[in-house]
């Protein structure tokens, strides 16, 4: 099985983990994006949302699990065919939640283009935006190196 290891600078990434943990807490009880069906009966709607939320919780647990003791000791995280898909989804969920909460003041155009002066952002927004970019970078690395594992899985 193909496996990639990504070396990260712990002093730079550690503060971003606090942002991920804050957003993860919110993602335990609320879905990251709009969901549902038109004209769904209440039972189906409830089961639909419940299953999505359960899957989302597993994804978030997998993402947080990357940054345990080993990460702080070695400064590296690993991806393979077993975790690539859930980590990709978890990154998407956290990024979507950041857009709705910590980065709400930036506006969608700014988020899409990424054209802004990070140094001028208020401290909390600055940290949240760096986390947003960090998660996108993880996604890019996974897609670049493990797309065949994901498509074949």
């Amino acid at each position, binding site marked *: 099985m193909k496996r990639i290891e990504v070396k990260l600078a712990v002093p730079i990434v550690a503060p971003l983990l606090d942002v991920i943990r804050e957003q993860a807490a919110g993602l335990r009880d609320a879905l*990251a*994006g*709009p*969901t549902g*069906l*038109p*004209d769904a009966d209440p039972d189906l709607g409830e089961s*639909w949302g419940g*299953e*999505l939320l359960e*899957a989302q919780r597993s994804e978030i647990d997998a993402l947080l699990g990357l940054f345990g003791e080993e990460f702080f000791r070695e400064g590296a995280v690993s991806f393979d065919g077993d975790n690539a898909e859930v980590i*990709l*989804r978890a990154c*998407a*969920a956290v*990024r*979507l939640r950041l*857009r709705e909460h910590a980065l709400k003041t930036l506006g*969608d*155009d700014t*988020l*899409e283009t990424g054209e802004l002066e990070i140094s001028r952002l208020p401290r909390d927004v600055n940290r949240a935006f760096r986390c947003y970019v960090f998660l*996108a970078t993880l*996604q*890019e690395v996974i*897609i*670049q190196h493990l*797309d065949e594992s*994901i*498509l074949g899985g």
Partner: protein
Amino acid sequence: MTKTVTLPKEDVRTETALGGPWRVVVLNDPVNLMSYVVLVFRKVFGFDDQTARRRMLEVHEQGRSVVWRGLREKAEAYVFTLQQWHLTAVLEPDEAN
């Protein structure tokens, strides 16, 4: 001799809605990466890379793309899977057909 039976209108409409064609539409969002959307389309629908990129660009440039048409049950399953990947996917009656 056959007796004419008038069916309740609501029942007829329900039957048509469930049995008729539906479409799965993916809407644009400013968050998910283009490469991510392409990967999801390839994974979920089995599109080749070119088709997946074309659909992704439709979403990006036009705000939406119809990615699948067919019966409601399967369309629901696709919408669920896309929502599991955190894409904004909706189900619509396929009125063109």
